[in-house]
C-alpha cells in the first residue's frame, strides 16, 4: 500500500511542480500517470524514491514514511523500488551484464562491488533476468551497441534485479516506436501480473493507458485532476486534463 498525502514540490526559483497531490495505490496495482509534458509526472515519480526531495507532504509505503527516512533507511527503501526511464539511463560504455548487475548494488557488500565482484547467485539472477526479457545473447556487449528497445529491456532487467516491490516507470516507451512500445509494456504487465509488483507508470498515449493500466491519475500543472479507472476518461475529462485545444490521437 502506497499512500501519497498532500505532496508538494517547489523547485528553486519558486517553480511549483507538484501542488498538494494525494492518492493511494494498492499492492499489485498498475497505475498510469498521465498529463502534459511538464505537468509534474516525472517529479511525482522521483519524489517517491526521493531522487527529488519533496518540499512538503507524506509518502507512506508499507507503514514507513519515505520522506522522513534517514539516509541509510532511504537506501534500503530505494533498493525495493525499481525504476525504468524514458531514456533508459544505462551506462552506455559498460557491458549489458554490468548494467543489469548494478541493480544489485543496494544489496551487495559495498567494498566488493567497487572491484566489480558480485556473488554467484547475483550473476545467475542477472542471466535469468536477461533471459526473461529475451536478450541473453547481448550480455557481453556494450550497452550502446544495443537498439533502443533492447536498451529498455536492459533497463527493466536492471530494475528487476532489485527484487522490487514497486516499479516506477517514467515514460518508459516515449522514445520507442509503437511496436516496441507494446512489447516493453507487456514486460511491465508481466511483472505486474505474475510477480505482483506494484507499477506506477507515466504514459503519453491514452490507448496504452486503456490497454495496460488498472487505474489512472492525471496531473495538470502539478495538480491532481483525475483519479479513477482509465475507462472513465471521456472527452470532457480529456479536455480537462490536457487543455481545451487538445485532440485525442491513437
Amino acid at each position: 500500500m502506497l499512500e501519497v498525502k498532500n505532496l508538494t514540490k517547489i523547485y528553486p526559483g519558486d517553480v511549483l511542480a507538484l501542488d498538494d497531490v494525494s492518492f493511494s495505490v494498492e499492492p499489485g496495482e498498475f497505475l498510469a500517470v498521465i498529463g502534459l509534458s511538464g505537468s509534474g509526472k516525472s517529479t511525482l515519480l522521483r519524489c517517491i524514491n526521493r531522487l527529488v526531495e519533496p518540499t512538503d507532504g507524506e509518502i507512506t509505503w508499507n507503514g514507513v514514511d519515505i520522506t522522513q527516512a534517514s539516509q541509510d533507511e532511504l537506501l534500503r527503501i530505494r533498493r525495493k523500488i525499481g525504476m525504468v526511464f524514458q531514456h533508459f539511463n544505462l551506462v552506455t560504455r559498460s557491458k549489458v551484464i554490468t548494467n543489469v548487475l548494478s541493480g544489485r548494488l543496494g544489496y551487495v557488500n559495498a567494498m566488493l562491488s567497487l572491484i566489480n565482484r558480485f556473488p554467484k547467485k547475483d550473476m545467475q539472477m542477472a542471466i535469468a533476468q536477461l533471459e526473461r526479457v529475451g536478450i541473453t545473447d547481448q550480455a557481453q556487449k556494450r550497452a550502446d551497441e544495443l537498439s533502443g528497445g533492447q536498451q529498455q529491456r536492459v533497463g527493466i532487467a536492471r530494475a528487476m534485479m532489485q527484487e522490487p516491490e514497486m516499479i516506477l516507470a517514467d515514460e518508459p516507451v516515449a522514445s520507442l516506436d509503437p511496436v516496441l512500445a507494446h512489447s516493453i509494456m507487456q514486460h511491465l504487465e508481466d511483472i505486474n501480473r505474475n510477480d505482483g509488483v506494484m507499477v506506477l507508470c507515466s504514459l503519453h498515449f491514452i490507448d496504452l493507458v486503456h490497454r495496460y493500466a488498472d487505474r489512472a491519475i492525471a496531473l495538470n500543472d502539478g495538480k491532481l485532476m483525475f483519479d479513477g479507472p482509465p475507462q472513465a476518461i471521456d472527452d470532457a475529462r480529456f479536455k480537462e486534463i490536457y487543455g481545451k485545444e487538445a485532440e485525442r490521437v491513437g
Partner: protein
Amino acid sequence: MREFLKHPAMRWIMIVGAIVLVVVVYAFGFSVTDVSFETVRDEQRLTQLTRILRALAHPDIFEYDKVEQNIDVAFHLPCPEGGAAAVSVDARGAYIIVSPACAGPEDIVTIEGFGFTPETGGPVNFLTQSGATLQLGNFTSDEQGSFSITAKLPNRQPIEEAQTIRATGRQNVGAPRFSPTAKLVFEKIVETVFLALLATTFGAVLAVPLSFLAAQNIMSEIKSPLTSISLTLLGWPLGIFLGATVAAQIGSFAESIFSDTAFVINGVALWSLAIGLATVTTIPRETEQVSGVSSRLVRGVGTVLIGIVGIVVLYLVAYGMLLLGDAIADPLGPLGFLGNFVYQLGDSLRMLTPVFAALIAGGALGSFGGRLGQRASDQLEYRTVKLINLVVAALAGAALFALVGAVVDWFYQILDIMRTFVIPAALGAIGGALLTLRVDPRQPLPIGYWIYFVIRTILNGIRSVEPLIMVIVFVVWVGIGPFAGALALALHTVAALGKLFSEQVESISPGPLEAVQATGANQVQTIRYAVIPQVVPPYISFLMYRWDINVRMSTIIGFAGGGGIGFLLQQNIRLLDYRAAAAAMLAIAIVVASMDYISSAIRQRFV
C-alpha cells in the same frame, strides 16, 4: 541620463575617447617594453644576428675525423732594417704568401694561399716567438685550392727574429659520427621524456580522487546535519593522529626486526594469506537488514585488527622490496636500474605507510563520527540534538581554528601560544556554537559544496603558480636535477588535471547517475558504476594531453634547476655555444612534435 548618452555628438565623443585611450595604452606599452627599431637596424647587431642564426642552423650533431694541413710562412713584425728578405716558396705543395712580406703592429696584410685541398677551411694564426697562438682569421679554399683574406696584425712588442703565420686547413674524412654534444643531448632528452612521464603519472594518481571532490554536481549532493559534520571534523584529526602514531610505532619495531631476508619473505607470504582469509570471512557478501550492537562491535574490532596487521604487512613488503632491490642491483648488470627501482619503491612504501595509515584511520574515524552524528540527529529529541550540537560544533570549530593557527604559527613562527592556539580555538568554539544556534539541528547542511569550494580554491591557487617557479622550492628540498623538476611538474599536474578532470565529471550525463542512485547504491558505488565509466575516455584523453604539455614544460624546467634538456640548453646558451644549443632545440622540437602526434593518436582511440 540615458537619452543624453544616446545623443549622436555624445557617441562621437565616446568613440574618440576610446581611440585616444587605446593609443595611450599602446604608447605606454611601447615605452615599458623598450620598443626600439633603431636597434633592429643596427649593423653590428645584424652581424651578430647573422652569426647566431647561422650557428643555430648548424646544430652540433655530427662530427668527422679530421686531417690537418699546417702551412707556415716566416714573417717579420715589424720590418727589420733593410727590408724583409725574400721568402722562398716551395710551389710543389701548398704555400701561403703574405703581402706585404713584413709590416708593423696593427697593420693590415693580405694573406693568400695556394695549392690547398679544395674546399677545406680553418684558422689562420699568428704564432709568436713565445709560442702563443693568435688567430688572424678563418679561410676557406676555393675549387682551385686557393684563398685570399685580409687580416689585422696583432699589437706585439717588436722582435727582430722572424715569427710565423700559419694556415691550418682541416678536412673531414670518413663517415660522420655523433658528436659528444649529440650524445649528451640524447641522454638529456630521454631524461626529459621520462621526467614528464613520472610527473604526469604521479600527478594523475592524485588528481583523480581530487577531481571527484572538485566536481560540483557530485559534491552538492552531499549534505549532512551539523552533528554529523562536527563529529566528522573531530574524527579526522584524531584518526590521523592515531593512525600515524600506531604506524610509527610499528615502523620502528619493523626496522629492528625486518633486516633478516628469509624472515621478511616468509612474513610477507604468511601475513598476506592471513589477511586475505580474515577479510573474506569477516566481510559479509550481502548487507543484512539491521545488525545488532554486538556484531557491530565485533566487526569494528576486527576492522581495527585488520588495519594493524595491514600496516605490518605494508612494512614487510617495503622491507622486502628494500632487500630485494639491494640484492639484485649488482647481479643484473646493465639492468641494475630495475634493482634501484624496486629499492626506491620499497623506500617510498616505507615512507608512505604512516601517511596511508593516518589517512585511512582519519577517514574511518571521520566517517564513524559522521554516521554517529547522523544517527544522533535522526533519532534523538530535537532539544537533545541541539545540546549535543552546541558541544560538538564548538569543539569542532575550536579544532579547525586551532589547526589553522598551528599552520600560521609554523610559517610565521609567532611562538605565542595565546595568539596561535588559545584565541583561534576560542573563536572557533564561538563560531561553532553560533552556527548551532542559527541552524535547525536536523537540517542537512551543504558540506559537500563547502568541500568543493575549498578544493577548487586550492587547485586554482596551485595551478596559477608556474612549475618553473615551483621548482625553485623543490630544488632546495631535493637538490638540482630531474627529480626536483618531476616533483614540480607533478604538483602542477595535480592542480591542472584535477580541474580538467572535475570538469569532465561535471559534464557527465546525469541519467545513469540517477538510475544507479535509484537502485539504492551508496555515494561511492554510484561514482564507481555511473560516473567512472563515463569519465574514463576523457580522463585518458586529458592525461595524454597533459603528458604532452609536461614534455614541453620539462624542456624548460631545467632553466630553474629542474634537470632535463633545459639544463643543457641553458648551459650552452650561457657559454655562447649556439651550435650545441641548436642541437638541444632540435631534439626538443622532434620530441614535442612526436609527442603531439602520439598523444593525439592515443586520444583518438579512446574518445
